[in-house]
């Protein structure tokens, strides 16, 4: 492929990582949701670009899903839920943002190291893509483990999953990509519905506030 195509793909993937970083230092829920919408948008763009580059029309569907479902529906739904359940607007971090950012940078470096050891046999785009995708995944996990707040944890998971889709689309000619992205959307829908059903205000740990300090079937 031409270098231009490559650069654009590269740019998009890179900006996805950037978006992850932005999510990492948000401390307001709404802002976080907006950034996530942006994240999903960028993903949709890069997927679409991959579809165009690889002449793989089915990828457009994935892109569409990403755009419609993740960039629009989910954030809106979450906005609603937050309002409905009256969840705190600010996010409690476990460790300070600064430290989190440092950790994030470390993770990105790690993923680069891991991926660049791969022999250039696999074409450059794939390698770059994978490197970025891996860092997005790791950052997503980092968000999940550094936020005490249920919704932000969900958002972290969704960004992680974006990374997966990025990787999947980056893998040229990979079958079942669409199915997988659909399956994942279903999964996420489940989670969101779960949050709504189980009235999860604060954390994953317990299904409602009263149950926060219930014993887990084991305390004496």
């Amino acid at each position, binding site marked *: 492929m031409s270098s231009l195509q490559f650069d654009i793909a590269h740019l998009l993937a890179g900006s996805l990582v950037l978006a992850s970083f932005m999510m990492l230092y948000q401390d307001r829920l709404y802002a976080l949701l907006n950034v996530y919408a942006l994240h999903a948008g960028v993903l949709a763009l890069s997927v679409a670009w991959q579809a165009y580059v690889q002449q793989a029309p089915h990828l457009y569907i994935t892109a569409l899903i990403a755009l419609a479902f993740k960039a629009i529906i989910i954030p809106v739904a979450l906005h609603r839920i937050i309002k409905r359940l009256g969840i705190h607007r600010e996010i409690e971090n476990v460790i300070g943002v600064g430290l989190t950012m440092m950790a994030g940078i470390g993770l990105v470096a790690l993923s680069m190291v*891991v*991926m660049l*050891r*791969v*022999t250039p*046999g*696999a074409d450059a785009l*794939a390698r770059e893509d*994978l490197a970025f*995708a*891996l860092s997005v*995944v790791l950052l997503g*996990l980092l968000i*999940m483990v550094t936020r005490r707040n249920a919704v932000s944890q969900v958002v972290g*998971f969704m960004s*992680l*999953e974006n*990374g*997966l889709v990025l*990787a*999947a689309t980056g*893998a*040229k*000619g*990979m*079958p*079942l990509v669409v*199915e*997988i992205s659909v*399956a994942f959307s279903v*999964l996420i829908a*489940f*989670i969101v519905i*779960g949050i709504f059903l*189980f009235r*999860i205000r604060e954390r*994953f*740990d*317990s*299904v*409602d506030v009263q*149950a926060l300090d*219930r014993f*887990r*079937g*084991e305390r*004496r």
Partner: protein
Amino acid sequence: MTLDALGAILLIPTISAALLAILPGYMLAARLNIAAALATFLTSLSLFVIEPTSGQYLLLDDLNKVFIVLTTFIGFTTSVFSASYIHHEIETGRLTPAFLRFYHAMYQMLMFAMNLALVANNIGLMWVAVEVATLTTVLMVGIYRTHEALEAAWKYFILGSVGIALALFGTILVYMAARPAVGEGLDGMVWTVLVKHAAQFDPALLNVAFVFLLLGYGTKVGLAPLHAWLPDAHAEGPTPISAVLSGLLLNVALYALLRFKMMLAVNSEAIAPGPLMVTMGLISVIFAALMLYRRRDIKRMFAYSSIEHMGIIVFAFGMGGPLANFAGLLHMAMHSLTKSAIFFAVGHIAQVKGTQKIADIGGLTTTNPVLGWGLMLGVIAIVGLPPLGIFMSEFLVVSSTFARAPWLTVILVLGIIIALGGLFLRVGVVMFGEPKGKTAPAEASYVPMFTHLGLVLMAGIYLPPVLVTGFQNVAKLLG
């Protein structure tokens, strides 16, 4: 794809799931459930007679043949057990018919998913199957709608999803690694093709891929420190599901892991997966063994023992070598049979005594001799005492690895004996001494439990050659 036995064992559960979803009346549903499971089991038995040809999507080889039969068999016995179990649940009103309809449908869905995971020849398909299995079990774990149940389900759900995500990433990496060698498109995910060309794959990519797969599927296997969902899911869900979880789902996940290990075994430059697996296995064994001591909930205790055994198995495969691999496979089979039998017994006991708290159960061998001694036999089997099957596998694991890696094996042995201490410490309270709790006679179906235990006993004394040859072939492939 023409409908052969492989297709059938996928089709029967799907159809019956659909039927059960619409069918009112739980008695009938339970019967249909049994019938469907039986049909699946019989079809799977036919695999030994006529071997269907493996296609791009489905395959049959020595590795999965035995496990398909095992899975369908335990699926069948568990459905029998579940019939008498839910009967009691309805009477005590813990479940409503509406939930039961859902329950039965989900049960067949789960069967379908696990069979698919076993026969899938496409790593993508396998991944989807495992995800479906997870989701269905999540729904069933939460079925009692108590705080603990919902929480357990939720925990399972979240950790499981992360696991799924990691596994998918690993799968993608495998595809990436394979693409240069086998070209783009579907072939890049067909397992048989992959394993044929695995020698030329990029080792570095494979390594990263294996890390993700190990963690992803390892979460399902319940290896420490990824185990967190397992004990609660076992403890809070309905007992038939605990039986299926311990007996089958863990195996299926482990099976998926094995498939990839075979791939790595072919590729010489790739890091040996051994050390990673051995480490995680030992951690799981020691951790679970120590966790056994402070348990108060009998189902949760046996869940931890499942973790321990998964650790032993992963250790065996990690050490590799024909004997250890053989032992690992044997241990998988034996553990499924034994552990599900134990959960059958525990389920009935919990119903008779009306509690799962160990402290409130006592003197079982006096009040309910059959149940009591049944569970006793199960526990004797699970801690690896002769003449039952697990003793044989543990004998092979330890004796074949000690000369190679003395200290590792000593750690394993320590874990085994600590676990034995923990289990008997608790079970002694349940079995002996003055009777405690309700002493109603159990209206239980003993057949499944004793069938399993009988099989385990037989395996401990005499292994049928067909099993042996199959396992030995696989053991060679596993390297």
